[in-house]
């Protein structure tokens, strides 16, 4: 089974319900798309992330009503450094889509989606704890896995695997 080359053309991928809906709503929020290994990734403008999530959740034809996962990837030292990754699932249509928002390394912050899915609460706290990305509007943005007085954010790429000694 050879890997098919990824598709990055928006026009070709419009048949996917999530992308179709976003382009129809406001095509300027879609920065980039990529269909690779049977999975669709949409890069969206970080200012619009909460609205995009709400639009996809309430999309009548294919409601992406379930937040499967929320995490982050650190692309240090390149800029924009962080990518916050959202995996959405439509329970009724069995469709998945991955949303991504790029953040700068200097003071990474993005709007919280806890008002769209309360499920984001723990996931965003975990990303804040391990990557130092701030989620504005989160009701309780505190460290979760690491102790409260811990210094640094362990999953950042410039944090050594053995920790600071």
């Amino acid at each position, binding site marked *: *089974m*050879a*890997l098919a080359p*990824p598709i990055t053309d928006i026009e070709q991928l419009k048949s996917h319900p999530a992308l179709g809906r976003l382009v129809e709503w406001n095509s300027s929020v879609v920065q980039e798309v990529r269909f*690779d*290994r*049977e*999975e669709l*990734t949409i890069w969206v403008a970080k200012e619009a992330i909460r609205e995009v999530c*709400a639009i996809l*959740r*309430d999309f009548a034809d294919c409601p992406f*009503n*379930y*937040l*499967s*996962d929320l*995490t982050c*990837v*650190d692309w240090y030292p390149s800029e924009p450094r962080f990518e916050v*990754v959202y*995996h959405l*699932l439509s*329970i009724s249509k*069995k469709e*998945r889509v*991955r949303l991504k928002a790029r953040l700068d390394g200097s003071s990474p912050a993005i709007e919280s989606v*806890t*008002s*769209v*899915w*309360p*499920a984001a*609460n*723990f996931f965003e706290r975990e990303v804040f704890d*391990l990557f130092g990305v701030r989620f504005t*509007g989160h*009701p*309780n943005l505190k*460290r*979760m*896995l*690491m*102790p409260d007085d811990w210094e640094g954010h*362990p*999953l950042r790429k410039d*944090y050594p*695997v053995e920790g600071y000694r």
Partner: protein
Amino acid sequence: MAEFPTTIIETVGEPDQDSTMILNMGPQHPSTHGVLRLVLEIDGETVLRVKPEIGYLHTGIEKTCEAKFYQQVVPLTDRIDYLCPMTNNLTYCLAVEKLLGLEIPPKAQWMRVLMNELTRINSHLVWLGTHAMDLGAMTVFLYCFREREDVLRFFEMVSGQRMMTSYFRIGGLALEPPIGFFEKVKKFADRFPGNVDEYENLLTGNPIFMMRTKGVAYLSPEDAIAMGACGPTLRGSGVDIDLRRDAPYTGYENFKFKVPVRTEGDVFARYLCRVAELRESIGIVQQALAGMPEGPIKADSPKVVLPDREKMKTQMEALIYHFKIITEGFTVPAGEVYQAVESPRGEMGYYVVSDGTAKPYRVHMRGPSFANLQVLAKMCEGGLIADVIAAIGSIDVVVGDIDR
């Protein structure tokens, strides 16, 4: 759907009135199934708010993965959700195989289904035993651990380990199942439905058990979806989803099984879902045994899959590949994959990012217990302290899976 007010996920602070008090439950508490700590705000016996405090078992597995070769990550995945090690192995292997574009031979796929369902039985038996013991039924615990012992013996037969199996490898299986393995599993599978009847005789109609579980810790389907509940917790609230059926992986499309769904949304509904799943799982085991194909157990991809020992002794190339995989690992084409699998606790997802080198750039585990723990606060509010114990048991958390 309306916007959710953020107050429903607001957590416990200082007691605001003289009438309430803060009660610390855990991290060393027998009913929290590990080092889970709950801070309860209570008014008499009534729970007003619950705040889970986690992180006591945080081992930084995600960070460790980034420093290992792809094949070295497999043993780490066992340690995440230690009650279903094979499901963790499977999810990770499927994710990397998807990144590589590897095709897995049928026998390996069927063995994966077989072992995965035995793992589900193992995990549900631990859940049933401890959940019943929390609610005062000691005998069920002994019965469940009797059958669990059989399942662990099967794990030992195939992998040499009872719990940290690492039996699934990227590209297939570690070893051929030993002679006599299928006969033993067949014997167990024939007997097991009778064992489930025994558990049900003790619990399902039991008035004490019913009083402790019926109508307790209610979760509405809307809340369950919005708060990210998964697995039997979600199906107990009437949401019909099972990834084995809805997004089949590793050959689940060849098997016939029902997905138990209950609409009551209480502890008893989640109990019934899991017990019904035990019966469905043993049905899948029977089908897997009956239709087990013959053939290789590893993919034909010498750069990724370790060669057989015998070949290494006679063939130069096999020895070279072995040396290269062990010392340098194998490179994986750049890209990213999110692989979700229906674990005993719900949607277990592995998000693996590759940058084209021999080490994963990022591995993120979406733990089903992590997601399910969020709904605990919602379930317990307004209930009694004793019901918190029933609620924890009903969402079946494994702390290794929460903290990673």
